[in-house]
């Protein structure tokens, strides 16, 4: 982690330098017009205090807050990632339902509504540095129904990069991910329940320069209730040490970075 590479610390330093011309102006004006000494002093005190406060805040905030200490992750975006959608199966409960129409409906549903939820689940859980650097995955739980969210909160080490990931990982880049779906239609031929069989792999670089394959796979049940939410899950995490990503040709990114589904 390198200090002062983020925008905010640089801006703070720049602001502190802006004070110097004011002092110079004050000195010039002090000689020319003594009546202005008091207002200038009054003006400078709060400016100095504010500047000192900003510097102090930057120093002590540290961590994921974008401070001078460990502040390089400020505004660090999650790497782009989309799961690849594989087969989509349908299960109907109406014996004579139009299966072609249901298949079309199912494919539209998973493309437009379900896959974005799962993209978000794994992005929030494993890829977004704003979450894993702080070990705060709160936004993830809104994608579960209330009961499932309770269980999910107690299983951060499986469903996310982990509460202490910020102390361990330098960066995480997605390798690939795929989903197979089954969509159950109800007696009115509306989608009722979706199961998603998910496979995900990313490569994480540890602080010591070694690499770990983050491997996550499992099944999710989703139902619609104020948006499609996970009502049940069965997820495995099976990380293992891995070789560093193959160096890419000059001008290109390493093979483990930036890949999607």
């Amino acid at each position, binding site marked *: 982690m390198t200090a002062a590479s983020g925008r905010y610390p640089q801006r703070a330093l720049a602001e502190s330098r802006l004070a110097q011309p004011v002092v110079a102006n004050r000195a010039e004006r002090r000689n020319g017009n003594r009546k202005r000494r008091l207002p200038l002093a009054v003006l400078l005190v709060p400016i100095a205090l504010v500047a000192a406060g900003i510097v102090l805040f930057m120093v002590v905030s540290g961590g994921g807050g974008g401070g001078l200490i460990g502040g390089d992750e400020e505004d660090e975006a999650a790497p782009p990632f989309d799961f690849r959608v594989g087969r989509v199966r349908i*299960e*109907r*409960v*109406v*014996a004579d339902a139009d299966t072609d129409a249901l298949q079309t409906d199912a494919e539209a549903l998973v493309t437009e509504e379900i896959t974005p939820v799962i993209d978000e689940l794994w992005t929030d859980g494993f890829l977004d540095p704003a979450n894993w650097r702080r070990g705060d995955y709160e936004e993830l739980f809104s994608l579960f129904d209330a*009961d*499932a969210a*309770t*269980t*999910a909160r*107690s*299983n*951060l*080490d*499986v*469903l996310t*990069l*982990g*509460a*202490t*990931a910020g*102390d*361990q990982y330098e960066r995480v880049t997605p390798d690939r991910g795929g989903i197979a779906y*089954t969509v*159950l239609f*109800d*007696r009115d031929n509306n989608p*009722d*329940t979706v*199961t998603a*069989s998910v496979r995900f792999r990313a490569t*994480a670089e*540890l602080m010591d320069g070694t690499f*770990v394959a983050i491997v996550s796979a499992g*099944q999710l*049940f989703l*139902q619609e209730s104020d948006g499609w939410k996970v*009502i*049940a*899950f*069965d*997820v*495995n*995490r*099976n*990380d*293992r*040490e891995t070789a560093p990503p193959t160096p890419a040709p000059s001008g290109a990114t390493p093979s483990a970075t930036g890949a999607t589904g």
Partner: protein
Amino acid sequence: MAVRGRGARRIALAVSLVTAWVVGSTVGTTSGPTSARAMPLFQIEQAHAEHVPVLDGSEPIFVLLIGSDARPGEAVGELRADSIHVVAINPAESKMTIVGFPRDALVPIPGFGTTKINAAMSTGGPELLVETVEDLTGITMDYWALTGFRGFDAMITQIGGLTMDVPFSVVDSAAEANIPAGRQQLTGDDALAFARARHSLPSGDFGRSENHGRLIIAALAQLKREFTKDPSRLLVWIGAGLRNAQSDVPLDQLMSLAFTATTVNPKRVVNIVLPGSVGMSGTTSVVNLNSTTVEAISRDLETDGLLKRANIPPSPNEQLLS
């Protein structure tokens, strides 16, 4: 019926299931966030998390399963019910009891006098059969489900067949059954033949009713195995079930029941048939239920869906099992 027991107990059950899994899994598995330096995340080799929204209320759930005598092309709900079972589920303990009713049992049918129980459905549909069973047992049924010959066959076929450990050979030409003893994969036709056969059973319809319970237990065991291996199979089972059966179970509650069923240990399911004696009513063969025993079983079952050992009658197929 509202789904019972959502809440803390369900969470506790789910958490305990996860805990049990973690405790029982391989050495080196970790279950909770750990110090980064003491236990780097990459040392998690096989961490697992699951949440199954099972029912866990203290009250039992009662489902009346009905097998109609309807052949292909006939209306399943307008013919006699030749297979009648109350399935009691105790969600809190993940246990199940199956109680078979002899189809020839002479019982009062509300509004239609006393006659064979299987006539209730042909008289007033599944609703009247539910009412009849409720009057007989004093237990309110939460749901019913009904299928016929073709529906049952198709249901088994669409789940890919049924693996069953058949305890004794079943040979009955009238039912086109020729099923050897032993663990085997039954096709839809095989399962239907097994369900229909009674002539080779010493206790006739009593033994057949118990065999229906065996089919239910085999299905439960297979659902559990398949769900463990691939949870999405649950949807295949629900689809096959609802396409080939009629039921008053709303889909969302069926989903909850199905999740709950996956937690039941099939080996601990109690499968009984109400005892009685065969007699005649005019020229018709009937079964006279032992009213004292029926009352004791009903009161015991009503409380928690479970039966005390003292209320479990001998197997009607005891002779074949010994």
